[in-house]
C-alpha cells in the first residue's frame, strides 16, 4: 500500500506545472465568475438566490473539465507512451489501473468539496448539489477509463468527453436526449433517482470495458 502511494505521488509529481492548472480554474476562475454575478446583480437583497443557479452551473461546467485534465496527464504514461509496455510488464500485466483512476477521481472530488466548503459561507445550501456533481464526475471518470483503453489514446477519450461536455453543459437545453445535465438545473426540485440509471449503466459498462482492455494492454 505504501509502495502504491509512492508510485501515485510520483505520477502526480510527473504532471509538473500542469498540475496547478485546475487549481487556478477552480479557485481562481470560478470565484471570479461568482464575483461578476454579485457585481451585475447590483447587490440587491435577493442576490444570493439570483446567483445560486449560475454558481452551480459554473461548478458543473468547470470541475469536470479539471477531472479530464488530470486523467489525461496521469494516464498518458500508461496509455499513450510508446514505452508503457514496460510498466505493465513490471507491475504485472493483469493488474488494472483502477487505483490510479480512483486516486484522480478522489482528488478532484476533494477539490470540489473544498470549493463547496468555501462557498458555504455565502451560499449555505449549495452542499445539496454535491451529490449531483459527484455523479457527473463518476460518469466522466468511467467513460474516460473505457475510452482511453479502447482507443489507446487519452487524447481521443478526452476529446469525446469534452465534446459531450460542451454540448451538455453549455449548449443543450433542459430535456435534451442523453443530457446528463438536463435534470440538474437548480429549480428547487430533486430529480427522481432513476434519471441517472442510463448514465450509471453506461459508466459501469465503460469501466468494465476499460478493466478488460487494461489487463492485456500493449500500445
Amino acid at each position, binding site marked *: 500500500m505504501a*509502495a502504491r502511494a509512492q508510485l501515485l505521488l510520483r505520477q502526480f509529481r*510527473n504532471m509538473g506545472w500542469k498540475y496547478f492548472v485546475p487549481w487556478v480554474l477552480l479557485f481562481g476562475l470560478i470565484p471570479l465568475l461568482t464575483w461578476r454575478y454579485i457585481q451585475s446583480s447590483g447587490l440587491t437583497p435577493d442576490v444570493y438566490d439570483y446567483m445560486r443557479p449560475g454558481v452551480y452551473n459554473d461548478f458543473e461546467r468547470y470541475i469536470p473539465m479539471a477531472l479530464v485534465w488530470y486523467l489525461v496527464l496521469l494516464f498518458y504514461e500508461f496509455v499513450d*507512451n*510508446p514505452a508503457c509496455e*514496460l510498466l505493465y510488464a513490471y507491475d504485472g500485466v493483469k493488474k488494472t489501473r483502477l487505483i490510479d483512476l480512483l486516486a484522480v477521481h478522489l482528488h478532484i472530488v476533494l477539490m470540489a468539496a473544498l470549493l463547496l466548503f468555501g462557498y458555504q459561507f455565502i451560499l449555505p445550501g449549495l452542499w445539496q448539489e454535491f451529490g449531483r456533481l459527484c455523479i457527473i464526475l463518476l460518469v466522466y471518470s468511467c467513460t474516460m477509463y473505457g475510452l482511453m483503453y479502447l482507443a489507446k489514446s487519452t487524447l481521443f477519450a478526452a476529446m469525446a468527453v469534452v465534446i459531450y461536455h460542451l454540448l451538455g453543459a453549455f449548449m443543450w437545453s433542459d430535456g435534451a436526449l442523453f443530457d446528463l445535465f438536463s435534470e440538474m438545473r437548480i429549480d428547487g426540485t430533486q430529480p427522481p433517482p432513476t434519471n441517472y440509471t442510463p448514465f450509471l449503466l453506461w459508466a459501469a459498462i465503460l469501466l468494465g470495458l476499460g478493466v478488460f482492455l487494461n489487463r492485456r494492454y500493449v500500445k
Partner: protein
Amino acid sequence: MIEVKGLKKRFGIKTALDAVEVTFDSGIYGLLGPNGAGKTTLLRTLLGLYPIQSGDVFYDGKSLRKSNDLAQNAGYLPQRFGMFYELTVQGVMAYIGTMKKMPMAQVRQETERCLARTNLSELKDRKVGALSGGMLRRLGIAQTLLGDPDVLIFDEPTAGLDPEERMRFKNIVADIRRDHTVIISTHIVDDVDALCDQVVVMMAGKVAFTGTRQQLKAVAEKKVYEIPVEKQALLSPGAFLGNRFEREGTDYIRILSTVPQPAGVLVPPNIEDGYLCITKGM
C-alpha cells in the same frame, strides 16, 4: 533457463508466432530477423504482455501460464524508451524500483549502482525531459539493471545510438554476461557479432536457426564470392548481390550464391552472410 515450446500467437488471420521452439540459458542471445519476423511478439509473450494462446513457456521449469515469474525477474528495455519526462533521472529509477517491489533502501543503493554503471550519476537530478536521445537510452539500460535481474531483455537496444554509446552498451552487457540470460533483439548484425554467444534467427514467425556465431557463419560456407563490378554480367543466375566496396582502387561486389561463380573469388563468410543465406532461403 527459459524454454519456449510450440509457442503460437495469432493476431486475427496473421500468424505472428508459429510453433516456436527455443531455449535461452545463461549467456547472451542475439535475436535476429527481418521486420515482422515475430521477434518483438516473442519477447512480449515472454514478459506476459501477450497471453500464451498455444504451446507454453517455462521459466526455471515453471509454466508461465500459471504465474509470470519471468516478468518479475526480468529487466526489459522496449524499442522506444522515454517516460515520466517531468521526473528526475533518480525519480524514474525510484519509480521503477518501487514497481519492481524493491525495498526503498535497496532502490537507493541500486539506483546509485546502475546510474554509475551507465555513466549517469552526474545527471541524477536532471529532468528526464532534458536528456538527449543517447542519455535517455542509457537511462533505459540503467533501469533494466535495477535489482540485478536474472533475465535481461533488450529490444533494439542500439538503434539510434552513436558509436561511443553503442560501445558503452556492449561493455555493460559484456560485464553482466555471467549468470544472466541476456536476449538482444536487433537488426544490427555487427552487435550480434560483437556480443552474442548464441544466435536465434526468426523468419515469418518461426525459428529458422539457432546456434553459435560460428555455426551461423558456416551456413554461408562456400556460398560467398567477391567479384569485380565490371564482371557482374558474368554472374550465373541465382546469385544474391550483397555489399559493394572498394579495394585497392577496384570496385568489388560481395555476392551469395549456391551455384559456383567462376567469375568470382570464394571468400570466408561472416555472420551477415549466414543470416542472409537463411533469410533468402539459400
